[in-house]
Structures are given as structure tokens and as C-alpha cells.
């Protein structure tokens, strides 16, 4: 066990994968010489060489398309896209090809690749650098979407993603990279994809979150605890395939649900959670599922970004609304 932040934990996971499995190669913009915009791949090119950690031209569609071909040929590529907003040029490769080769070839060809992408706001970054469009990928068949909330989860989930026989989009919450430090197990260990984590048990209200908002959900739970409100907090960890049973069980237990997502509201992850809960637990609901999300606006720049990202204030307000009804 060593205490690490999420960036270090991811770097450690990648080092383990590169050392254990020669099929693993990393490719992306600036991941080698500089170790990536967030230094997640720091030192890996020096250690594993330019054929294992590959700096690429500025071409996201090319990065994903090449990684896709490599995966079909039997490698285990881990591609990095610098920010979620820059994955859009690769959208066709991801949706039409990465997610479909298994279907198209009836399992004859498969693409076990991982696409690592920093996402979300909170650091007052420039336009396009604070996207939270994960719902678009969760809506895409044939692709798994994984989002860690803590350093150790990041390591265990990333190693699981690299082992997974299917393509995984691995979203790394930017404002968590260096914000949380915790003990992270040494060496190889994995955390199952598709299983949510009940990070805090409670009896009055269930708050479902993922990524950076899990921290806010826990902080909200503390605040509410002071007022005698017992909040259960669930970290989804995987957005696709979604662990509906854990969410529904919690909803049935508490009867009140707040779905938190930094992404836009319309047809977002919180909408999916609300749909599932009312579908499978309607008669347990004591109040409508509250959606606490980013708005259907472009993510605002630094000066007003704070009003877009769901924080403790809005989560607490939503929990209280479920109690008013």
C-alpha cells in the first residue's frame, strides 16, 4: 500500500499492465516526451520505450482508428484522448467501428482496447476542456463506459478495463486527479466492471453519483447527517453496462432517490437512472427521483462554471426536496 493521488494510481496501473503484458501499448498526443497533459503517463516512455508508449500526431480519429486495428490484430492498446471534448473527431471511429466489429463479424473479430479520456470541469479550463458528455458513449452499443471516483478504484478499474475482452471508454475526472489521496494496493488487482459501489449506507435517501460528484455526494451526506437525515451514497463506477439492481435495491430501501450527473440533463445519465428507478421501484417511491445535473447549456467558462457543475449545495437541496414531498 502506498498513498497516491489518482494520476499516480493510473500511472501505476499502466506501468503494471505494460510490464505484465507485452501486448499492451499506449498511444496518444504528448503522452511520451511530456507524460501527457495531466502527467498520467509520466516516465512510461523512458521506461518502456517508444514502441510501447507512442506519441502521435494531432489526429484523434487516427489515434482511435489505429488503436482499433491494433486491437483486432491482437494487441491491447490503451489510447489517450487529451480531453473528452477532443474525442468528438473520433466519434465515428468509436461508434461505427470500435463498438461494432464484434457484432459485424459475429465475434470473429474483436477490439479489446481502452480509450482513456480526462473529463469534467471544475478547474476553470478553456472551452471544450470541461465536457461531460459521457451519456453519448453510454448510449452507444458495444462499448463499456467506466468512471473511477478514487485513486484505488482508478487503478483497479483501469487494469480490469485493459483485461476486458470488449472496448472500454475510461473517463478520468479531471478535478479528482490530484484532489484525493488514499492508500492504493501495490501490483496487479482489478475491480469488476459493471458493478456499482455502495460507498455509504443510509436509510432515508439514496444519492447516486459517479466520478467527481461522488465526493460531493459524500460531503452532502455529512451535512445532512447533522440534520438527522441518513443518506446512502452509491458510486456507479460503470455507466454502461449500468448496475441497475444495486440502484433499484437502494431505491426500494429508501424510497427517495437523487441522481447526480455533471453531464447535460436531456437524455443524460440521471435521466436513465430516473427511468430505471420509476420502472422497477415505482411503488416504493415516496417522492420523484430528483435529477441534479449539468444544464442543457454549453459548459460555461471559468467565471460562471460553478453554476453549471452540481455541487454540495444543489445535492443537499435536492435531497431536502425528496423529503418535503
Amino acid at each position, binding site marked *: 500500500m502506498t498513498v497516491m493521488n489518482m494520476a499516480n494510481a493510473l500511472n501505476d496501473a499502466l506501468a503494471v499492465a505494460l510490464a505484465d503484458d507485452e501486448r499492451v501499448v499506449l498511444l496518444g498526443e504528448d503522452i511520451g516526451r511530456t507524460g501527457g497533459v495531466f502527467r498520467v503517463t509520466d516516465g512510461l516512455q523512458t521506461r518502456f520505450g517508444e514502441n510501447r508508449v507512442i506519441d502521435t500526431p494531432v489526429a484523434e480519429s*487516427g489515434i482511435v482508428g489505429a488503436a482499433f486495428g491494433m486491437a483486432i490484430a491482437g494487441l491491447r492498446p490503451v489510447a489517450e484522448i487529451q480531453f473528452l471534448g477532443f474525442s468528438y473527431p473520433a466519434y465515428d471511429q468509436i461508434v461505427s467501428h470500435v463498438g461494432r466489429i464484434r457484432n459485424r463479424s459475429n465475434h470473429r473479430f474483436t477490439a479489446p482496447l481502452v480509450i482513456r479520456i480526462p473529463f469534467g470541469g471544475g478547474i476553470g479550463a478553456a472551452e471544450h476542456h470541461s465536457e461531460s458528455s459521457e451519456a453519448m458513449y453510454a448510449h452507444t452499443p458495444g462499448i463499456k463506459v467506466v468512471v473511477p471516483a478514487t485513486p484505488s478504484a482508478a487503478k483497479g478499474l483501469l487494469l480490469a478495463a485493459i483485461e476486458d475482452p470488449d472496448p472500454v471508454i475510461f473517463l478520468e475526472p479531471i478535478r479528482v486527479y490530484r484532489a484525493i489521496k488514499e492508500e492504493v494496493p501495490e501490483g496487479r488487482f482489478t475491480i469488476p466492471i459493471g458493478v456499482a459501489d455502495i460507498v455509504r449506507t443510509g436509510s432515508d435517501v439514496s444519492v447516486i453519483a459517479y466520478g467527481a460528484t461522488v465526493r460531493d455526494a459524500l460531503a452532502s451526506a455529512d451535512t445532512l447527517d447533522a440534520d438527522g437525515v441518513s443518506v446512502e451514497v452509491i458510486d456507479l463506477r460503470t455507466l454502461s453496462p449500468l448496475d441497475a439492481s444495486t440502484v433499484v435495491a437502494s431505491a426500494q430501501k429508501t424510497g427517495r432517490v437523487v441522481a447526480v450527473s455533471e453531464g447535460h440533463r436531456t437524455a443524460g445519465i440521471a435521466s436513465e437512472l430516473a427511468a430505471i428507478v420509476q420502472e422497477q421501484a415505482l411503488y416504493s417511491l415516496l417522492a420523484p427521483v430528483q435529477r441534479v445535473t449539468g444544464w442543457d447549456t454549453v459548459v460555461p467558462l471559468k467565471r460562471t462554471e460553478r453554476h453549471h457543475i452540481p455541487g454540495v449545495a444543489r445535492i443537499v437541496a435536492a435531497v431536502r426536496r425528496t423529503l418535503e414531498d
Partner: protein
Amino acid sequence: MEPVRILDVDGRLLDESPLPAEEIRRLFAAMVTARAFDHKASALQLQGRLATYAQFEGQEAAQIGSAAALRADDWMVATYRDAAAMWMQGFPWENLLLGRMGDERGGSPPQGVNVLPPSITVGAHMIHAVGLGWAERLRGSDRVAITYFGDGATSEGDFHEAMNFAGVYRTPTVFLCQNNGWAISMSRERQTASETIAQKADAYGIPGVLVDGNDVLAVFAVTRDAVGRARRGEGATLIEAQTQRMGAHTTADDAGRYRDEATLAAWKLRDPIDRVRKYLQASGAWSEAWEQELIASASVEIETAANRAEGLAPFGPGAAFDRVFARPSAHIELQRAELLRDLGGEA
């Protein structure tokens, strides 16, 4: 830029043949068989036994000549119009027809056949060939990858990214562009303002070759050289094979809306099969009986393939759920159950 040509339209060798007579007979037989498939597939489509079909008649030399230059284990990433090339590299007629019947099992060739299912999207697949070849080189194999695409595909951004990656990493990739004059109704002249497509290779530090796409020997020769360079680790090559599709874009298209008869007539005179027939004839290596026999056996082979494809046990309604992931997730199983419940009997 003058296109490489070895066999002229009258079947005369302008240069030394890159292949012995027996091999030329083999390529002739392959082109005749491929054309028989093309005709048969069009007929099946008319009978409603296939969905839309994209004819390749006129492009047999470009596809057969290039595919003949590959090693059996080389990778191929081609398009909806490249049935002849795919078949040459081992993709069974049955699979090609099955795909056209709307059955995903068509995309699953036998083990050992390193040919991906035909790409329906225009442009995206070229970079896949770059990744495939690159992976082979990274693990020390000398397998190369060839990708087929049309003149229209060169306008997509993905063509550019694929060529650039191939140039930067010197991947073992052969870019084979069949410039058949058209992208549906858009003529090559209005598709891009560059004089040739071959010259686009310059922008990527890659050699570009222009070849008479209706000359099977020339296409074979330039592809053999490109494959050789790739296998020796000398990088990628862009080949522009100038040809013309004699049919419409697909069985759903009416070429009369954009192509005049004169163009068609001019190209008919450059038919890729005719000139080889003349060549073989001159050396007494061809007979009417032999060609008829080739066509006859091809037709039987293809009819059999079509019947097998039609006879394949139908998918159950839940089949699509099995193809999402290696193992269906719980949420996929729930959806399968929901479908079966709603279908009641039918399941």
C-alpha cells in the same frame, strides 16, 4: 504522370510480363469467376434474394491483380464493392452473399482468413489497415495490410489521417485506391481538384503510383512492389488504379442520371478481361470451351453458396443481444427477456 501499363487493350505486352503464362491463366480464371459472381449476385438481387448489391464489373483487374500479390496471411480491409479482392484473399462467396442477405454471420470468415468484413462507411476503414500492419510490425511479424477504397473515399478526413500515420510510422500498408471515375453521381473531376489521386501521396512522404486499373498484369506488378516494400519495413505505398465501374453505383442507383453512354462505351473497349483473353488466345492458352467451363462451374459454385446462405438456420429474435459483448451483461439479458415476453409465441 503516366499510368503503369504492361498489357495493352489489344492484349499485347508492352513490357516483360511479371508472371509466367500459367499464373496469367490463373488470374484470367479468377477474373472470369469474379465477374460470374457479380452477374449472379445482381440476378439474385433482382429476384429479391439479396438486398442492395454493389456491382464491381469493370474493376476485376484492379481487385484480382492486387489481391494476387498478397501472402495468404496478410490483412485485407476492403469495401462493399470489393467482393472479388476479398474472395481472392479467402473470404468465401457464401459469407459475401450472407452479408448481402442481411445476416451478420456473413461478416465472419473462417479462421486464418485475415479479411475484415466489408466496410460500408466510406473512409473510416483505411486507418484500420494502418493499425493492423503496425501491430504486426510491433510484434515482429512481417505480415502486411492492404486496404481498398474508392476515389470518393479520398475526400474523407480519415483518408488523410490514415495516410499521415502510415507515413510517420512507416507502417506496412498498401493503400489501393480504385478510381472508378465516380462516387455515386460525383465525378472524379469534381471530387478533388488534384490532377491524380496518386499524387496525394506526396503530402505524406509516401510513394504514389498510378496504374492502368484494367491491366491485371500492371496492377499485379505495382502491388507486388508495394507489398515487397511494406514487408521489408520500407513503409507504405499509395496506388491509384484507374478504372471504371460498368454498372450503376448499386442496384438501387440509376447511372443514367449522371453518366453518358459515350464514357461507358469508351471504357468497354478497355475491358480488363478482354485484353487478357486476347493475350492468352495469341499464345493458344485460351479456348472458348475453357472459358465457358469456368463460367459454368463458377455459377454452380455461387448458386450453391447462395443456397447455403439461404439455408442457414435463422437467427432467433434474441440473437443480437449475444453480439453486444463477449458475455451479455445483466442489462442486456433483461432486454432480451423483455423482447421474448413481448413477442410471446414468436420467440
